[in-house]
Each structure stands twice: as C-alpha cells, then as structure tokens.
C-alpha cells in the first residue's frame, strides 16, 4: 500500500531508512557536454573540483542550487555566488556562530553551481559555539527593530555610494583641473579605483545581505516547526500566510504600475499608453499630449527606485530590469488600464487578505491544547512577524535596488573597454572573471599611458568568442539535482531553511529519473487552487510577451518581477523553487495556483500542451500534447 501525501509524493507506508543503497552520481564522473571542452577556463581555480581534494569532494553531498542560479554562470557573475560563499557562510560559521553549522561550500560543475553545507558534530565544540551564539544572536533578536533601522540606513548608504561611481573612457589629454589642483593622481588611477570601489561596494552589500537574514529565517523556521508539531501536515502555504507581510516592498513596483494606470485614467492620457506598445513611442507621444507632462512626472518619480526591479533573481547580469526594458511594466499597465476602463477595481484586496490572515491565525491558536502552548505560539508568531519584513524586504534592497544598479555600473565600465577597442559589445565583459577584468583594466592603462596598443585589443576577442560557445553548450546540459554521497540525516538548519532540503527531498531525488518524459510532474504545492489551460514555456522574460490570457506559465524559476503578468495567467509552474521563494509568496498574494520545484517542467512540457495544475496536491499533469 502506498500513501499519497498532499505534496503528491508517493512513498511506502513503511518508511525506508533515509540512506538507502542508492547514491547520487560521483561529481568526478560527470561527462563534459559536447562543445564545452575546456569550460574550466571560465572560472577561477578555487571554484573547480580538483584531483588533490578528490576524496573529500566526492565524499560530500552536493545539491544543485537552481533556485538562485538556474543557468550556467557567466564568469563575471560569479561575484554574486562567490559573495555568498563567504558572506552567508561566515555568518553561520564565525559570526554567530550557529552551533551545529559551519558554512556552505560551493563548486562549479559544468558551469552550474553545486553547494554543500558543512556541519559541526563534536558535542564539545557545539556547546562552546552555543555560548557565543546565544549571546550574539540574542542581542540581534532583542534589539531587532533598532538594528534593522540601522541596516536600512547602511543599505541605502551603500546604494548611494554605488550611484556615485562613474566610469568614463580615458581622455586624450588629462583635464587641466587635475593638473592645477595638484592632485598628483589622474584618470588612470581614478578608473582603477572606481573599479575596486565597485567590487568592494558589491561585496559590502553582499555582507549586509546576510547580516540579519538567517536569523530572520531562523525565527520563521522555529514557528514553522511549532506549527508542524501542533498540527501535523499543516502546509507551508498556510504557515507562511500567517506571517507574511500583506504589504512588502516586493509588491511595491506592481503597486506603482497600478497607481500610474489610475493616474493615466485621471489625466485622460490612458489611450496613449494603450495605443503605443513601444515604450519610446509611448513616451514621445505622452510628452506632446495635454496632461502628458504631469503623467510623465509621476512616471519618473515612480521609476526611482521602484523600477529597479529585476525580472530574475538579481544574481545574473542578463536578467532584464524594468528600468532598462519598460515593456514589462507597460504591458502590465495596459492590462490595468483595460480593467479600469471596464469599471473593475484593480487595488489589491488588502483588507480582505488581512481579515483572512487574522481568522486563520485565530482558529489555529484556539485549536492548541494548552494556554502555555498558546503563549508560545503568540510569542513565536510575534517574533516571526517582527523579523519577517526584513526577510521579505531585504530582497528589494539587495537583489533589486542595489544589484540591478551594480549591473548597470558594470555595463558602464564595459563601455570603457569598448571605447578602448577591447570588445565589440559591452556584454562581452561578462565572459571575464572580475579578477581578469582587473588585469584587463591595467592592460588598458598601459596602452593609454604608453601609446602602444594594449595587448587586450587583440587578446580578449577570441577568448570571449570561445567562452560564449562553451557556455552555450553548457546551457543545453541538464544538471542533476544532487551529486556525491547522500547524507543519512539532515539537521543543519541553514540547508533546511534556505533550500528546504530535508531527508525526504534527498529520498525523492534518489528516485528521480531525469530522462523520463512523463505526463505527470510533482513539485511543491506553493499556492492553493486548480487550473487547466494551455502551457506557455517562458525561458526568459522575452517570452513573456508571447503570453496569452488564461495560459499556464511554465518556467525554470518564477521571478517576482513577473508579477504584472500574474493577473493574466491561470497558474504558474516552475522547475526550481521552494515554498519560501519570493515567487511562491507572490503567487499566494495573487491567489494563483502554483506548483514550484517540479524539476523538469520546462523539459517535459511544451508550449501549447494542455495541462492541469493542482496547487494543493503539487501536481502538474499533461492532459493533451500539442500537435507536432
């Protein structure tokens, strides 16, 4: 007899011991995808598996972090993963330190990021660490609001300093003011310093990123544990509903689009937005129209910072950002205007959501056995609600506001290289690792200073071409969810918190056959409800513009900034993601059935297939394959 749990996984009634004889592929045995031979040159030496450390590396459990980096990494973009390799790890290992956890190790395998948490097992060491941890983490929890206020100021300061960094091609002749002010340092030094400041600024924000985050997750995790003990089987969706902010910064960009739609109606310029699908044409027409200037003023005000909104996780330079590609917010705006013209209310039902949350919370509370339990529940819920705004809002500050700005600064720098004849295209820079960029920059300075052509003018083009081809080949490969030796138990809280990886997940992965072309996919039920419709595979935000009303969005990972299309689709399905993923939170806000972490939806489902999404059971079923 088998038992089906709500998330659709089937497992024997008598549970097999977690560590069965099965094992994951040895990371050293994975074949290199055809055409990607030599891919290792894209990344620094310390990021690769190596024969000297083979025994240690194949004895570890590695899982693919598709949540944050579903695609093979661009060499420059490893600054993001390298940042958390240190910044997130040091919080658990050295700063708090979490008694049972060290840091989280990383390797790039065929260009994809695999991570492996380190734990602490020596009881003596755990006890020693606990003393430090309790004092330090207790200080943060005890002074959360003040520290979070400081955090916000630090984050804004960091973003402000990032804004001030400018990159310009070096001048033919050094400007006079640099001479007459007797600075003694010149444009070459400024350029090099700007680059260093840019990198340092990124790593500074990267450090703030994890200053409070894991403690926030920790409070949530404790509340979640309590609920799961009290109400076995309670879904994550329900627990999150009790703590998540009705209004958080991630929802603000979409709210701004709604406001701009309403303003366009009031100022009677809505038709201009509806008629001009190209952003430039719309803006030009708006500038000439009566009332257009007023609307444009509101539009410009909303853009900073709310349109600094990435259409991806923010960890990848190639994810389009609203402020650079206005098509996405404007598409949403047209949709809202049409709704308003039909007399519909486009505001989010905040009061109804709040009321529902209160009712659900109160009902569970009443079901607890004792007053002491209710006291614990109230305390944990209170603490979780206190820390959760940071968990949600940090994402806007860090990944959206700061990181999108960071990527545009990197492009400014890339333009300097293009101007100095190193590259043909600004995007080429991303095929260099940040340490290689430093070398290339110094190379550029020598060329400028001496008047001989820099070697970079002939050196990088073939390398970029080769690396682009290799990365394209890597992108066609499907990374297995896990590698190495399966762990028998997972107690380390960070892994559970950040990736939702449990012994059950590991068991399930051991049973997964990546190659099976199945009509039935299982994932995590992220948002309740059932829907049937035609699938639309969205591999990047460009595909979003093909979406038809009522279709089911199927993608590698749902980006929060896709929220504007959520009002048009019937359901959302993703390959990767957990219940705490921002996309899952937003799906719930929109009341959209959603199944995340299906593993292979974009491989098994094709655009035009008729699919059924069950957001309660966590299943996606292909009912009818599209012709051809």
């Amino acid at each position: 007899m088998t038992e089906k749990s709500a998330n659709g996984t089937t497992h024997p009634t008598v549970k097999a011991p977690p560590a069965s004889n099965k094992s994951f592929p040895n990371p050293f045995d994975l074949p290199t995808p055809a055409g990607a031979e030599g891919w290792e040159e894209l990344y620094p030496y310390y990021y690769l598996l190596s024969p000297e450390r083979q025994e240690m590396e194949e004895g570890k459990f590695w899982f693919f972090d598709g949540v944050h980096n579903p695609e093979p990494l661009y060499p420059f973009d490893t600054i993001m993963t390298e940042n958390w390799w240190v910044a997130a790890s040091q919080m658990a290992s050295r700063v708090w330190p979490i008694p049972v956890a060290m840091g989280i190790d990383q390797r790039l395998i065929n260009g994809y990021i695999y991570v492996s948490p380190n734990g602490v097992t020596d009881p003596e060491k755990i006890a020693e660490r606990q003393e430090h941890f309790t004092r330090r983490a207790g200080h943060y929890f005890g002074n959360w609001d003040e520290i979070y206020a400081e955090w916000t100021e630090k984050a804004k300061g960091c973003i402000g300093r990032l804004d001030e960094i400018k990159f310009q091609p070096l001048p033919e002749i050094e400007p006079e003011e640099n001479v007459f002010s007797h600075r003694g340092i010149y444009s070459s030094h400024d350029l090099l310093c700007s680059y260093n400041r840019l990198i340092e600024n990124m790593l500074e924000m990267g450090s703030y990123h994890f200053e409070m985050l894991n403690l926030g997750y920790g409070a949530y995790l404790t509340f979640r544990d309590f609920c799961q003990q009290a109400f076995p089987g309670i879904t994550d969706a329900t627990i999150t509903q009790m703590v998540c902010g009705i209004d958080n910064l991630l929802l603000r960009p979409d709210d701004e689009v709604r406001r701009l739609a309403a303003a366009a109606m009031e100022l009677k310029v809505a038709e201009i937005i509806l008629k001009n699908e190209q952003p430039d044409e719309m803006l030009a027409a708006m500038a000439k129209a009566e009332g257009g200037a007023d609307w444009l003023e509101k539009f410009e005000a909303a853009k900073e910072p709310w349109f600094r909104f990435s259409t991806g996780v923010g960890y990848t330079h190639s994810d389009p950002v609203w402020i650079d590609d206005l098509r996405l917010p404007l598409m949403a705006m047209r949709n809202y205007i049409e709704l308003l013209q039909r007399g519909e209310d486009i505001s989010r039902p905040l009061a109804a959501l709040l009321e529902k949350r209160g009712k659900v919370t109160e009902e569970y509370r009443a079901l607890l056995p004792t007053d002491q339990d209710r006291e614990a529940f109230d305390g944990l819920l209170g603490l979780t609600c206190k820390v959760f705004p940071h968990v949600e809002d940090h994402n806007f500050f860090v990944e959206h506001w700061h990181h999108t700005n960071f990527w545009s600064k990197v492009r400014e720098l890339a333009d300097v290289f293009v101007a100095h004849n190193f590259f043909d295209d600004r995007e080429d820079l991303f095929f260099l690792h940040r340490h290689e960029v430093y070398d290339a920059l110094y190379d550029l300075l020598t060329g400028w200073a001496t008047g001989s052509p820099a070697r970079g003018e002939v050196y990088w083009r073939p390398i970029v071409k080769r690396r682009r081809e290799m990365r394209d080949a890597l992108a066609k490969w499907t990374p297995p969810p896990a590698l190495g030796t399966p762990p028998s138990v997972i107690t380390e809280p960070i892994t559970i918190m950040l990736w939702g990886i449990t012994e059950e997940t590991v068991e399930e992965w051991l049973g997964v056959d990546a190659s099976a072309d199945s009509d039935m996919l299982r994932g995590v039920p992220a948002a309740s409800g059932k829907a049937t419709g035609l699938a639309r595979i969205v591999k990047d935000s460009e595909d979003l513009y093909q979406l038809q009303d009522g279709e089911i969005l199927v993608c590698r990972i749902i980006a929060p900034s896709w929220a504007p299309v959520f009002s048009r689709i019937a359901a959302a399905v993703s390959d990767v993601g957990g219940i705490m993923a921002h996309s899952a939170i937003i799906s719930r806000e929109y009341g959209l059935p959603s199944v995340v972490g299906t593993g292979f939806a974009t491989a098994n489902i094709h655009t035009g297939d008729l699919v059924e999404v069950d957001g309660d059971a966590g299943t996606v079923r292909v009912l009818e394959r599209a012709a051809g």
Partner: protein
Amino acid sequence: MTDHPFIIWLDHESASGNPLLGGKFSNLAEMLAADFSVPPGFGVSTAAYHHFMDQAGLAAEATALLTSGSSVASSVIKGKASDMVAAIMSQPLPSDLETAIRHNYTSLEEKVGQKDVPVAVRSSGELEDLTGASFAGQYDTYLWIIGADSVLHHVRKCWASMFGEAVFSYRSGVEEAGGKQDIGICAGIQQMVEARAAGVMFTLDPLNGDRSKVAIEACWGLGEGVVKGDVTPSRFIIDKVTFEVIKRQIVSQLEEYAFDPKTGAVGLVPLAADHQDSACIADKEAVQLAKLGKHIEQRRSAPQDIEWAINQQGDIKILQVRPETVWSQRERSGLVSDVKSPIDHVLLRLSGVQMAKPPSEEGQP
C-alpha cells in the same frame, strides 16, 4: 400520552434533543433542526418500548437484568437475556402501538412519494451520549427494510438488541459507575439513502488527536463496510481551518455494500469496473464534508464522529452524529513543557534542539 408519544418525527418541533428518541436519533433531530440534511423519518420512542414491555409483562425482569451488573455470574445473565430476547420477539404488540407504526410508515411513503419505501431501522439507545461512551456498533441497524410488516419485525429486533451479549459486556463498566435504572431504547425509522459513496468522518485526526484536521474514511456504496470494517476505505485528511486536502489515500475497492435484488437484502456486490480504482469521492466533496463536520462540531461544541452518505444526485446526508470519545476525554498534553521566551525557542532551534513534542507522544489509543 401527549407527554410521552410513541412516535416522534425527526422534523417535529419536540424532536431535537428529546430523550425519548435515544441518543442517536435525538442528535439527528438536532441536526435537522439546524438545517443539516438528514433523511426523513420518525422514531418509535422509548415510551413505545416501555409501553410494550409493560403490556407484555417484561418490564420488571428487564430492569432486574439491566441493573444486575457484574454481581451475577455471566452465564446466568446470558441465559436470562436470551429468554428476554425470545419474549420480545414473540409477545403480541399492543394494537395502538402497531397501528401507530403502520400509520406513520404510510405517512413516510406519502412524504417521499414512494410506495414500499426502503428504510433503515436503527436502535437509538438512551445511554448513548449520557455516559461519554459511544456505544458505537453495539446496537443493531437494519438496512433496506421494506413494508410495514418488516418494519414492525425489525423494531422488535432493535428492542431485543438491548439484551444482546455485546451490549452487556460493553455496559457493565458504565453501570458500575452509577447507571440509570430504567433504560429504554428507541427504534429510528428513516428513508434509506441509496448511497453512491458513504463513510465516517471524525472532526479530529483519530491517529494523534490533532484537532486541526477532519479525517474522512469513504467507500463506494453504503457505508456499512466502513463501519463494520470489512471494506478498506479510502482516507482523506482535511485541514479544518483552510480546508486544504492534506492527505489522500485512495484504495482499490472490488465490492460495495448495496441492495442485492437477488437476495432481497443489503450485501456485498461486485463494484462497477470503472469505479474500482478511482476515488469514491472527489476532493471537492471531501472538502464539503469537512466543512459540514466543522459546522456540526461547532454546533455541538466538541469533536464529533459522523456517519454520512452521498446519494446518486451528489447530495450529502448526515446519518449519525455522536461525540468522539477517545481523544476528547483525554487530558490534552501541551507541546511546550516549560515557559521560555520566543527568542530562547529560536536560539535552541538553531542550536539543533526541537522545542515542541508532537501531539500524543504517549502513543496511540
């Protein structure tokens, strides 16, 4: 006579909670009064039972038997009880009572517009609910009874079930605790639900006492198999707050309980092939049931054990409600043992220590 009528219809204003209907039937009347959907019918009251016992000269002996408790050797009780059963089955019915039952069966036929309407005849004991013991399955139920003669015969059988062996052994402990001297029984007569699917639900998880769940067991056909335990039911666990389907365990079923024209009685018959491997109730229906269960629990202010059926038209009918008796009577053990600040809870959790123990750690009932 007016104070102690022989017949009380479920939808009569006096029916709800009326002790003359016994526990089971007065509960159903309460459900009906609260607008839950209950199959129409009437009870042959405990007054009718006492009237018969008086007229047949069995009353004194019955009282003696029912109060004998464990002070008399069980073999002696067994002999006396079986004499009593034989007497109940054979002594003439008082004519006023027989006329009343026949007349009201005819009224039921007219009410539902069906001559020879099949009915269920159920014992409804006075002790049910009073003692906190459920008496589940101790009194008899007779299904698909057709015609007044057969109804009369099965009313007697309900009365006789008071003296069945099982009831005695189940009751002795209750009696010692200070029982009622003069216990009666009601025979409830209700239109049969031609069930497409039926079963039982508890408004808590019977495995661990978790009150945030509704547990449903369901099978194709009549629910007798679930009640008796000879059909393995499909199981659903529904969240009582959000009504999410938390667990769904669909079991293949080869036979169902239904009226078998060949034998003229309810029995196990082969289940249509296309039903065998499919869910007997849809998620939507499971959720509907859970909502119903939650309402009933709220109305009755305690966890409930509810028998239900879904007819061919898809309407849910409540067949029986009674208090859940296992977990409800236990002291509920708390999750946290000592008072800690929420911060301490979190710090301990991140140190790898679990803060709460799962419910019912002391084991299953």
